[in-house]
């Protein structure tokens, strides 16, 4: 049961977290997976199969843009994702929603 709730709760915030990680600079998929794991202290262990469809959807919605880097030396080509202007506005809106929900939950849970 815990897994089910954990999955549902995590799923609801993934778009926001991905956009948040892209706010500072463009990143490639594996980098996002690694940062998500490190910064969340292994709470968010994303798999490729979960991350990429999110990125594709965000890209389809115009919230992120992508670009393949050329192969330099031994470095394999990477697809970098960066947040767009629309993505920044959407992130601000989602963060606001998140804060309100988080506050509301906090108030209930404190009782």
């Amino acid at each position: 049961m815990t897994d089910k709730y954990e999955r549902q709760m995590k799923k609801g915030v993934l778009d926001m977290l991905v956009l948040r990680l892209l706010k500072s600079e463009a990143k490639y998929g594996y980098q996002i997976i690694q940062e998500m794991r490190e910064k969340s202290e292994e709470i968010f262990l994303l798999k490729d199969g979960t991350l990429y469809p999110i990125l594709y959807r965000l890209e389809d919605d115009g919230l992120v843009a992508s670009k393949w880097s050329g192969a330099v030396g031994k470095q394999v080509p990477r697809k970098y994702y960066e947040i767009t202007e629309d993505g920044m506005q959407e992130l601000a809106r989602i963060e606001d929603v998140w804060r309100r929900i988080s506050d509301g939950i906090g108030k209930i849970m404190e009782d």
Partner: protein
Amino acid sequence: MGEKKYVNAVARKLKCDGKRKREIKKQLLADIQMRENQGERLEEIISRMGKAGELADGFNENISVEEQRRYARNKVLKIVIPTVLAVIFIGMAGFWMLPKTVDIEESRVFDKEEVEAVMKETIELLDAEDYDALQKNAIPTMKPLLNAETRENMRRTLSDDWGERKQFGAVYMVEVIQGNSHLAVGEMTVTYENVSVTYRLTYDEDMRFAGIYVR
């Protein structure tokens, strides 16, 4: 399992269009190579990513409903369109192969007067037993049949003694088209002293004698 084989196995199970599949394959390969560059072994990477089916399921669960519908629709179309085209093609080929008859006057290959004249000439040559002349203007498969024995057998099916030819009667001609082949088929009733014979004679595009039937 090599990385390409693994990625191809994932791609086969994805429910998205070809463009997206290629993108996913490219990204997965890039990710695997990056992890290998960081010292992970391929087995470890695959183990972390999950079996091909599990990874594909992960993608499929997260691919938008709209994209999955588009994929399903395209998949159906990929089956339906070739099937419909195949049925149309078979139908057209069947129609093309079916023998079709055309009034000889509308023929672009045969001339009515010429066919009628050649028919009369063939009958005259048969009556005169001029097999050399008959064979000279016949298709190869007809040549061995144009001899005295065949002629007698044919004649005996109607009467032992036809008698002298009296007159040519009515003639009816059509063009038969089958595929690329055009044939002129004519029926002519000829009156002999003791019997009235209807000849059905067939000629190819070069007016070579190609068939005979009498009744």
